[in-house]
């Protein structure tokens, strides 16, 4: 299946959860959030939420500056 991660196309073999995908990309670190198709996925759902063909995944980092 094909997904889009931070606007880049990625080919993945299903099944793959959010947590598995982030671990594979070495992106699992504190202070990040993930949205699939413009919807934020709560952290406790990352282990079970599957990625589906055509999903758009955005990863963003907390910022504190003001």
């Amino acid at each position, binding site marked *: 299946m094909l997904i889009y991660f931070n606007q880049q196309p990625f080919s993945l073999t299903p099944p793959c959860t959010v947590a598995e995908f982030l671990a594979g990309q070495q992106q699992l670190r*504190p*202070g990040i*959030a993930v949205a699939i198709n*413009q919807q934020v996925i709560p952290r406790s759902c990352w282990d079970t939420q599957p990625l589906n063909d055509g999903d758009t995944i955005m990863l963003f980092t*907390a910022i*504190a*500056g003001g």
Partner: protein
Amino acid sequence: MSELTPAQQLRYSAQLLLPEMDESQQLRLLYSKVLIIGLGGLGSVVASYLAGAGVGHLLLADDDRVSLSNLPRQLLYSSAGVGQLKVDAATARLQAQNPELVITPLAARLSLSDLLALLPEVNLVLDCTDNASSRLAINQACFLRQVPLISGAASGWRGQLLALQPWLGQGCYQCLYPDWQDSPSCLQSGILGPLVGMVACQQALLALKHLLQIGDVSFGRLYCFDGLHGQSSQLKLQQEPACPICAAGDS
């Protein structure tokens, strides 16, 4: 006072021309009380626009003093004011901009208990702080006191804006970043004035729309902006079922 004075009609004449505005809407702003926490690049711009628009009572909280490196983006301050408390410099400047407002300076870093004591008397909180622990405490206090929160953040080329009414089950700041410890400050990661100004202007616009109850304030949505590439996105927040702040259902 139930109608605008002639001087007020003149002062606010441009915004009164908007179809969503009228005298009663302007009076609504004049009777509003807003807490702005943090008077850096975000807070100084936000405070200036809210004072200009006639938000009648501003509470300004910051324990910091003006430094030379603040001046490129913190537009309330001048070179002569370096070393002054930001709340004092800001109060003087805003009071000169709009003498009919009440401005309450709070030269402190507000703790959770300070916030819980202050919030029952305010209509809206604007988080313009520069650190994770203040942001999470403000989020918690706004949840507990059911006061709407509009939170802005800027760092490097990135800006984030989040309007929250977390007691409505739409999620909170802690839901978004549950394991957030801290992030680099503006001095560590760099910042350009207009980037933080853009976030501040959006924050001030949402604040005025919320106070006036007009348009769409997009509560529960995170707006992310990348100023280097000119890209933005809006993401819908979801409540974290395990959130210790807003999901502690039957405790």
